């Protein structure tokens, strides 16, 4: 007679990804790299923020980038044109980057020549949140034309990030947008998140954001490296 048995498992569904993410984190740490997983909707300004960040840091930190998109090299070409070492990952349909993709990309980057690695995730507010990459910081862009109600629609990402960059502030007078309501919603869901108001078009607020990254990088430097 067949007997039914219950076997305890208690394994995270994302266990395989998280193990590789930890290896990536160790690799990045060994090279003294601060890594940022940059997430946002398509068109929120991820690539523009990378380019503006490079400009604002003005050589204080050497940038590297990993560009994630379903297809094309459009973003990688823009970033490469700015003199930033970059690897393009085309997911071929997948809606997010995962740790194995980052492991692969890290092999193609000059890690000893990079201080700050920005990983531009595939544009959406849902899937990228579930997959750790080995990053030190998770940052999202919430752009003004998307509206101020997004935290309630996508609580997962707003509760998961260390910083929210509100981009396209120059468009605020022209669209229906309540900055106070957005700030209040972000604060309510994620009390510790740093919030920046920027415009990648005009450069407004980019300095403050770049200073924050610089501070994060300094805070993570090993005492022996000073």
């Amino acid at each position, binding site marked *: 007679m067949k007997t*039914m048995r219950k076997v305890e498992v208690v394994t995270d569904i994302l266990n395989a990804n998280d193990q590789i993410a930890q290896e990536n984190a160790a690799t990045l740490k060994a090279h003294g790299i601060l890594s940022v997983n940059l997430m946002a909707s398509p068109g929120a300004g991820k690539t523009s923020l990378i380019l503006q960040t490079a400009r604002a840091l003005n050589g204080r930190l050497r940038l590297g980038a990993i560009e994630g998109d379903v297809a094309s090299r459009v973003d990688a070409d823009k970033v490469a044109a700015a003199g930033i070492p970059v690897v393009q990952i085309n997911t071929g349909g997948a809606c997010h980057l995962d740790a194995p993709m980052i492991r692969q990309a890290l092999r193609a980057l000059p890690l000893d020549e990079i201080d700050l690695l920005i990983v531009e995730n595939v544009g959406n507010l849902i899937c990228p949140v579930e997959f750790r990459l080995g990053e030190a910081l998770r940052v999202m862009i919430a752009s003004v034309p998307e509206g101020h109600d997004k935290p*309630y629609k996508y609580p997962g990402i707003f509760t998961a990030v260390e910083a929210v960059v509100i981009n396209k502030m120059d468009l605020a007078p022209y669209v229906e947008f309540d900055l106070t309501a957005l700030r209040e919603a972000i604060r309510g869901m994620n009390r510790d998140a740093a919030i920046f108001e920027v415009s990648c078009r005009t450069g407004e607020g980019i300095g403050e954001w770049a200073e924050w990254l610089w501070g994060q990088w300094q805070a993570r430097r090993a005492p022996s490296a000073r």
Partner: protein
Amino acid sequence: MHELPVTEQIIKVVLEHARKADAHRVVQVNLVIGDLTSFVDESIQFYFDFLARGTEAEGAALHIRRMPARVRCHACQHEFAPDGVDWRCPRCGNLGGEVLSGRESYIESIEVE
């Protein structure tokens, strides 16, 4: 979309545990998934049925226990369940709080023969 690689991982872990337990058939898989994650039950079920074919987990029932979001108010420490877009504390009216649950995604147990 991302349920496909996730379900592949679920089946891998399930089969490993089934073999370790000398089971010849997996009857049920018990998952715990939080409402703040982006996993869709029907999508996991769809991929599971497809990917489990020809393995010891073929035909296994998928039981998904959903964990509702729970939040502790920053202001008054009251614990509450946000109701959709309403993240206001029902006791003091403060907006939002620390997320206590709703982010879970793990395989709790399997039932085998």
